């Protein structure tokens, strides 16, 4: 008896967003990365198109962060002391994108406050060290973010950086900087479909084309609220495919940051029950599982921290894009 596999056709399509600009396009990147364009749910390639594979961004910092897991220092070695070296190491680890995180007083061992001049320098050095497109996130303190990111936007004019994170409190400053200097923004809202949509509307109302906006619905790590984030992403994507123009943005999430702040990843042998197993294996698996889960929810950009996770997640993406067969 012939069996017909039911197929759903959607009217909507996720917008394509291109990160980075080559020399011909007014920047200095050796290549650009385009995400989005889906006409179906993630990896359902028999139903619709997924023209671009999800991209992996590797997170680096402008100086050695004080609050990262020892496993990450071990993995990156000396590179964590210098953003340019770290960026090259990230590229070597297989990154599609580099996420430069500007440290604030909390992440800095000496508690110093970063200056705009330092931020400009760090971005300049990373741009010179790698040809990959760049995302630049501030320390997460509203006033400081504004000060640093406005300077960064000016320093890297024309590079089509992704500036982040852009929230409802500071979107005006960041969007203005992106508009003035030819960049993109990452619009983050706390796990709510309506809030995500509202921020996209506010950003659009300021005149930034939606082809320059990533939607960041926030997430939690595996075991720490990922179900909630997953559900929000799934609903956003279904709304997008059903034609809701204000949800049709590619989605960026930060599973690396979420997974590596947990006790399971941070606390080594001795601090936790022996039954938890090998520390490094556990921590990397946590990051990989968090990231792959989010890919299934519709993530277009996943930001990771450990080089081993990058390799594993890229392999998963390759296989899923090849329809489940070995993509190599």
């Amino acid at each position, binding site marked *: 008896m012939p069996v017909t596999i039911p197929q759903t056709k959607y009217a909507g399509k996720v917008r394509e967003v291109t990160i980075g600009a080559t020399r011909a396009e007014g920047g200095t990147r050796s290549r650009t990365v385009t995400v989005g364009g889906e006409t179906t749910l993630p990896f359902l390639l028999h139903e619709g198109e997924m023209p671009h594979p999800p991209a992996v961004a590797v997170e680096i910092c402008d100086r050695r962060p004080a609050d990262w897991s020892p496993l990450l220092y071990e993995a990156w070695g000396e590179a964590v002391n210098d953003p340019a070296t770290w960026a090259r190491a990230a590229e070597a680890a297989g990154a599609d994108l580099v996420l430069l995180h500007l440290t604030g007083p909390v992440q800095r061992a000496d508690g110093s406050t970063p200056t705009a001049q330092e931020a400009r320098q760090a971005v300049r050095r990373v741009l010179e060290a790698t040809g990959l497109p760049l995302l630049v996130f501030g320390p997460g303190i509203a006033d400081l973010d504004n000060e640093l990111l406005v300077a960064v936007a000016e320093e890297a004019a024309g590079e089509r950086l992704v500036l982040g994170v852009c929230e409802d409190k500071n979107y005006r400053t960041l969007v203005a900087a992106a508009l003035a200097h030819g960049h993109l923004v990452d619009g983050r809202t706390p796990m709510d479909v*309506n809030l995500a949509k*509202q921020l996209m*509307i506010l950003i659009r109302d300021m005149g930034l084309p939606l082809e320059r906006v990533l939607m960041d619905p926030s997430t939690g790590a595996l075991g720490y609220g990922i179900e909630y984030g997953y559900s929000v992403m799934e609903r956003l994507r279904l709304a997008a495919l059903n034609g809701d123009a204000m949800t049709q943005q590619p989605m960026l999430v930060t599973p690396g940051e979420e997974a590596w702040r947990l006790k399971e990843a941070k606390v080594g042998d001795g601090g936790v029950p022996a039954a938890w197993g090998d520390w490094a294996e556990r921590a990397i698996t946590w990051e990989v599982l968090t990231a792959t889960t989010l890919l299934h929810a519709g993530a277009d950009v996943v930001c990771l921290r450990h080089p081993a996770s990058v390799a594993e997640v890229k392999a998963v993406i390759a296989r899923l894009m090849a329809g489940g067969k070995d993509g190599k």
Partner: protein
Amino acid sequence: MPHVLFLPAQRSAEVSVGASLLEAAQACGVEIHIPCGGQGRCGRCAVVVQGGDGRLRRRSTIRLSPADIAAGYALACQSLVLGDLAVVVPPQEEIARHLVTAKHAVAVEPPAGYTVADQPLQAFFLALDPPSLADQTDDWSRLQRGLAGAYGVSGLTADMDLLRRLGEVLRSADWQVTAVVELDAWDRPAGPPRLVDLLPGRRTDALHAIAVDIGTTTVSLFLVDLMTGRVVARAADYNDQIRRGEDIISRIVYASRKAGNSQPAANSVNSANLVELQALVVGTINRLVEQACRRAGVEPKQVYKATVVGNPTMIHLFLGVPPEQIRLAPYIPALNQVPSLPGAAQALGLAIHPQATVDCLPGVASYVGADITAGVLSSGMHRSEALRLFIDIGTNGETVLGNADWLICCACSAGPAFEGAGVEHGTRAAAGAIEEVWINGDTGEPTYRTVGNLPPKGLCGSGLISLLAELFLAGLVDKRGRLNQGWPGLRDRPSLGPRVRRGDHGLEYVVAWAEETAIGRDIVLTEVDIDNLLRTKAAIFAGFTSLAEAVGVPLEAVEEVLIGGAFGQHINVEKAVEIGLLPDLGTGEGWSRFRFLGNTALNGAYLALVSRAMRQEVRNIANKMTYLELSADNRFYEQFMSAMFLPHTDARLFPSVASRNT
């Protein structure tokens, strides 16, 4: 060049073809008011054009009804001169009456055919035969005999206090007395009649009663002369209980605590906190009674009945009944259908006649009370075939949908913002309250109107709605409700001038400078206030959209939207739509589908007070209404979050706002 003559000023100007009437007026020094800056938004520059056919082109008539246009009305800023014209500039008050979007409260009138003879309360004048050795009937029996003989009233009852005073009153009045008798009550239709008071002399004019609406935020009251059935005085004030919690849940929690302790009280009826809350609301009512009686020249002791409405929590606290079960699953109140309480005024502490009856109208469920059944009663929606939506814009955001065949209702915690509470410079809709605001889109400068045209004291509900809508349309706040500070080099407005500034609670917009106010301080709207307004409007919008969704009725199918609330005399529907408080049913004809009923709860209490039929009807309404519990419904939260935006996250729900916004 066309010649334009302005009347009654008798001035004229020569202008080129295509000039606006406003320009013509300015050219010859005729003043025309343009609060919105000549953008065709406010309708305040309406003038009457004589002989305008073919000599005038109207670019926009957005504020004018077809009848107005037929009568020659035109907006001076939006009308272009093509030929010779004569233009009458009407006084401002006259223009205000022509604005189709300003909805005025319907008048409160006694029901048709009102007569005091139909009332349960009667004042019977008696000229009794003095006792003598030949007629040794005792005083009480003599009074009864007189009442039976003259008025057919028998089986009279009376309380101890009256019996003790009886002999003295009869003798000092030389046996000419007025007996105030309550013949029956809605739950004692066969009596027995009760002697409420005995007054010396002919005092049939004494008969008064009050209708009271106990709101969570505002208490309002009508003093009614039962001889004519008319409202002779009205009064309103904030509920003194506010100092023990702004919403009903915090009042319930407070009432069930032992004073000065977080533990529940052992004996909830005698809880000091419950006693305190009861005294606070009765104190508020007594203050209003005193005010209303003073204005009408009536003795508070001549008020023989009180008909009371309020949400179930307010009624429980007013009666001193422990309310905690309202808050606890399965949410069962002690009283929804309160029996009539003859002579309860004294026990409750009401400063009216101590033997007055207190009649609390029936409610539906724990969070939908007599204020809503009374509201439906006064709206008449339960008698109409047409599908209507009734929205009570108050602290508890109650909504009713239905018609003569069915009624469904819900309630949600909306907050007191539209009653002027929880807003920095909020105020009730009383004299001096700013009730309408326009903002010039070019300069950001406001123009406002206050109740009674007095120096402003603060912003009332309609003023807040109006101000938020104008700030939004003028681009001074974004869709999230945050004040724009301008962003250098990006728009043509690098700075917003002195009206937007940083205050104690973040950014704020100055509506009135200290020297023009009655309070000697700048009147401002802060971002925190805007947040409160957004939450309130979002809850109300989410309430009625969830309700409509639950029964599967699209809002467009609603033939009429009835609005109740403490807005004073008017609400501007257009502005309420612009901020997403009321549904967008389109401009022009759409606006005519809204009707503002004023304080519907109080109007309903008044009707049930003066009419036996209405008192019966309100019971039927309570029995008939279905209650939808929103806390058990995910739809509400989803709707609430999407309504936390100006006007709404889903712009398709507000097409007329979107078209004006781009």
